């Protein structure tokens, strides 16, 4: 009796265990940020690429280096091409989570804007963290970060991302530091103190957001009078929900997301073909119609509908007002500042 049962249990356990262990070939799989953005990518990249004869599936994720690390260390991952943030690109590359990219297989370095090609990835979009407000509700229009921190001039709640990144920068700019000196000041302990002190002045009026979808929602609900937000989300809210949200571009940080190919994928050749396809100027030029993010192929900009350029981060008029996020600073200081931020945000 017992022997018989054991055999059954053993067989069942074997069935359970052997399932995931066997390496399974899969279709080429691309992972991006979901939402309206990925819907746009589907139209301009994924569907046309499917038509070239290589079967492509897509998934969404929320970011996080821990997730990528699990995929690689867990083995047998079904992710092939992933869109990552700038620090994830740098750290993940150091940790060997991505395949090294042969730039000649993705169209050559000359195709892309300077600074967007990396040994482990290539830029997908360029976007800004802007100051946004509801033009229908706010009587006094804010003119920059100093107004964001001026609760006398513009009273009411304002929301910022829950995290140190970008908030310390804008606090210093509001305190009179020029955007070109921000990281120089932040690299000193006094600079960090100064930033937190400036944030203290509006702490009672602060609300935090976590996901990029929240800021336009908070503006629409009247929970806040001003917010920091990803520029594409604000334009999308204006177009989809007929809002009159305005953006201030002056002294806003810009950053870049990149495509990477996950280490050890059996689909490497097809993954390279996909990244090359998504880097073609004529394909990239179609993306801003769906979501107002800048693209990285030099040849794409002249092909973009002029009416869309007004709110595009790669528009020279806008780009020259912005400053680049210093990813090295955040890689080095992110851990410590995250603790500091948690403590700061968690106490009244």
């Amino acid at each position, binding site marked *: *009796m*017992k022997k018989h*049962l*054991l055999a059954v*249990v053993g067989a*069942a*356990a074997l069935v359970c265990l052997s399932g995931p262990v066997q390496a399974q070939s899969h279709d080429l799989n691309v992972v991006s940020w979901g939402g309206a953005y990925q819907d746009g990518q589907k139209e301009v990249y994924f569907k046309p690429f499917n038509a070239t004869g290589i079967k492509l599936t897509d998934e969404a994720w*929320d*970011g*996080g*280096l*821990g*997730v990528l*690390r699990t995929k690689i260390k867990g083995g047998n991952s079904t992710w092939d091409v992933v869109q990552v943030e700038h620090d994830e690109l740098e*750290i993940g590359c*150091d*940790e*060997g989570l991505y395949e090294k990219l042969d730039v000649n297989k993705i169209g050559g370095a000359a195709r892309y804007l300077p600074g967007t090609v990396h040994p482990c990835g290539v830029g997908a979009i360029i976007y800004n963290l802007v100051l946004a407000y509801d033009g229908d509700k706010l009587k006094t229009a804010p003119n920059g970060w100093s107004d964001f921190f001026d609760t006398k001039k513009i009273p009411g709640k304002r929301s910022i991302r*829950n995290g140190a990144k970008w908030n310390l920068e804008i606090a210093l700019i509001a305190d009179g530091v020029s955007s070109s000196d921000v990281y120089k000041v932040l690299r000193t302990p006094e600079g960090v103190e100064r930033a937190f002190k400036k944030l203290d002045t509006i702490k009672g009026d*602060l*609300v*935090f957001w*976590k996901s990029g979808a929240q800021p336009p*929602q908070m503006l629409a*609900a*009247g*929970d806040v009078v001003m917010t920091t937000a990803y520029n594409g989300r604000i334009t999308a809210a204006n177009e989809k929900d007929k809002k009159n949200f305005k953006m201030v571009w002056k002294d806003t940080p810009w950053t870049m997301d990149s495509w990477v190919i996950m280490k050890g994928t059996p689909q490497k050749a097809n993954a390279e073909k996909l990244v090359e396809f998504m880097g073609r100027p004529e394909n990239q030029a179609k993306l801003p119609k769906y979501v107002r993010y800048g693209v990285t192929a030099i040849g794409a900009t002249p092909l973009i509908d002029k009416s869309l350029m007004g709110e595009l981060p790669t528009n020279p008029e806008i780009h020259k007002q912005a400053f680049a996020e210093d990813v*090295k600073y955040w*890689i*080095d*200081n*992110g*851990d*410590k500042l*995250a*603790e*500091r931020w*948690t*403590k*700061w*945000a*968690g*106490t*009244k």
Partner: protein
Amino acid sequence: MLLRQRTALLLPLTGFLLVFFVAPLVWLLSLAVREAEVPRALPRTLIELQTWQPGQALPAKVFSDLALDLREAREASTLADAARRLNYEVNGVRSTLMRAAREVSSADAGTVFGADFFTTIDPTLTSPEFFAAVKRAHGPVSSYYLLAAFDLTRNANGEIERATEANRIYVDVLLRTLGISASVTLLCLLLGFPVAMLLTQVTEKTADWLMILVLLPFWTSLLVRTAAWVVVLQREGMVNTVLMDLGLISEPLTLIYNRTGVLIAMTHVLLPFMILPLYSVLKGIPPHYMRAAASLGAPPVVAFFRVYLPMAAPAIAAGSVMVFILAMGYYITPALVGGGSDQMLSYFVATYTTDTGNWGLASALGLMMLVTTLALYGVAHKLSGGRALSMG
């Protein structure tokens, strides 16, 4: 024979639990004390540092060994993990180490890798603080993450001390987590008890209908319910609009992104877990006990407290323990409807697991929560005379 058969029948479940629950749990929690990154990447440096104590001069060979380790670790892709680990203690050393490894690899043959070489890259790399941190991470186990979870740290001499004021976080968060869980449990009890009592006193058909109302939110996704609360509670949401239209308030109330929102949403989400165990016990209390108490002269309030409540006590204990333990682990609800000072411990576990990938600290915080929960459960069990364990 009977015993053997029973054992055999339990075998599949036990095996399943061992393989898919106990083993991963133990493995994950062991991350809280394991130190594998630095010994894997810098073995020679660690041997050199074996006899070195902070305050002494560094061993002469340590820099050439460090150079050798850096070069090999870079090629084997083990350096990034070690650099990340050291960056927790020596802020900024992550990219410094990666840069040093690049420079070592690209240095001309015959370069002397001494203190001078590393000072030019960054003076941190020749500082006693850096080597003390390397030595402390020698493995195979260390108390670093556990200490960090309790806001403690080691100074350069290896003595344990409290973290600086700005970095004391997790003890506060633990107390906050316990506070929110206790408040939610109390609210659930106050709201759930009358409902459970009502369920036992109406006809069976009405009770069925009421039960569906209790269970309906139970079957709805947690995320959907939480998002619904955002719509209801926001500044121009339903609650504020109705109150303003009725003229009860002139300014909208702040009901969300603060503690109020967290308590409202969590109480709603967890209410069924209170009502169901309460109902299962309360329906077994014969109604004629109360009638007997009344016929013997007890006013309704006295009868309730002296007759009904003692019989309901096991249910209250079971429901409260259930809600409290579930509340301890909540994070998505506070993350969506809470403010910065309302985040609970699991929020940080989630952040460290998926965002920054600091699994050591995530495990240490998880361990802290597990031990606290088990301890509280033990106390509840003891206080209730063993009744908290039974589900009625």
